[in-house]
């Protein structure tokens, strides 16, 4: 029992970093997903090609490589600092999952029945109106469960920022483990439990999104 009261408060010191990295990178990822997803279904070939390169680069290499690359290479290559380690982590996770999610956005838009597009053309809607009023409201519902799933992935990915020196939950866990090796199993079980508790609302939202996406979509 004393171990619990010792370990948990130590770990929770990292909670703020983990949650702030998750929220910020999720916002970047969602924004990038819609920008890149919509660009890839646009008529503009140049826009399509540029986003395809972005998506393939970020999906083709692994997150840890991108994280280290941003951490070491950007300051060296361009002589600019990304602000701080926090920004490096957030940008890496955000751009990486933005690339994955853009495929979800693209897939969902393409999955909306063709008849919907045809009908909205027949009703003389502009392409902007068509996207905003007809296609996206149906596509977004289909995206919901995937957005939930990828948000859980992003939560897991935030643990990587401890590798670039951010003081998140895993960082404090590692510090404790290095001073007290015999308690390592308990410490890591607690780290895992904290992450799981953080994931629970996301799991719940994903299930809700799944239920939501099933009803009322024209097919």
């Amino acid at each position, binding site marked *: 029992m004393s171990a619990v009261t010792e370990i948990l408060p130590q770990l929770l010191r990292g909670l703020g970093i983990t949650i702030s990295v998750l929220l910020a990178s999720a916002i970047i990822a969602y924004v990038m997903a819609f920008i890149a997803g919509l660009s890839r279904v646009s008529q503009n070939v140049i826009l399509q090609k540029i986003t395809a390169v972005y998506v*393939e*680069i970020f*999906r*083709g*290499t*692994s*997150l*840890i*490589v*991108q994280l*280290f*690359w941003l951490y*070491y*290479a950007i*300051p*060296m*290559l*361009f*002589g600019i600092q990304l602000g701080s380690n926090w920004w490096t982590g957030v940008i890496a996770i955000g751009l990486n999952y933005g690339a*994955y999610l853009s*495929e*979800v956005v693209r*897939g969902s838009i393409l*999955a909306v029945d063709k008849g919907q597009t045809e009908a909205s053309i027949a009703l003389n809607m502009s392409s902007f109106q068509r996207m905003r009023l007809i296609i996206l409201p149906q596509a977004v519902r289909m995206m919901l469960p*995937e957005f939930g*799933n*990828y948000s*859980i*992935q992003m*939560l*897991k*990915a*935030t*643990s*990587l920022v*401890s*590798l670039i020196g951010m003081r998140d939950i*895993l960082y404090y*866990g*590692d510090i404790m*483990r290095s001073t007290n*090796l*015999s*308690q*390592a*199993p308990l*410490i*890591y*079980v607690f*780290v*895992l439990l904290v*992450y*799981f508790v953080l*994931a629970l609302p*996301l*799991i719940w939202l994903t299930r809700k999104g799944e239920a939501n996406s099933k009803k009322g979509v024209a*097919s």
Partner: protein
Amino acid sequence: MSHNWKWETFFEAMPIVLKGLGITIGLTFACFGFALIFGFVWTFIRRIPFSPIRWFVTWVMEFIRSTPPLVQLFFVYYALPMVPVIGVTLDPFTCAVLGIGIHYSTYIGEIYRSGIDSVDKGQWEASTALNFSTLDKWKKIILPQALPPTIPMLGNYFIIMFKEVPLASTIGVGGIMFMANSYGALNFAYLEPLTIVGIIFLLLSYPSSILINRLEVKLNTRFDKNALIGKSPKKRFFLSKNLEGSDRIV
């Protein structure tokens, strides 16, 4: 501190990083093989007709898949030797296989499950009617139909695991990421070796994802024919939708 790209560093780092390539690929295959086998364990435990076990295993899977693989890796490497009674010290490579393999086996178990669920109910009924034994039923009727449509999804997981394997560099497995980092630390030149790692990943994972997409088209058409015989358009829609999500992680 501005530092320009140096081609000499690039070519000096190249052979050193490439030394780790064999280990990275070997580790990917080992993790994938472990996950393929262990995935069956989850799938079969979840079919036990005793709901507390099913419920428990479902939550264990949910727990494993929604917590970071990096922490699980550290758990296997640092904490497992400290666990009383069963604690054993393992080398980093085995730890990586266990850690990453168990994490992804939960995903692969789900894939098997979706494959088994996709087999038409009539096939179960017919094989029962023909008096097949349980083993024969699985071996001759269910699995031959359940597994082929899962192959493209498993292929995707192979690529995903290839991209996850650099995590093992944190516990000292000498893959390409480890080589690049140690070269960087020695010469204080991270830019070039890390770029090499990125290029290697792009060169290996992009062509394989194209190959898997082709395989997917091939197996899906075969599968669609089966579904047509089963006369179940709704199920066909559900499955092809499931199978097409080539990059869906969960």
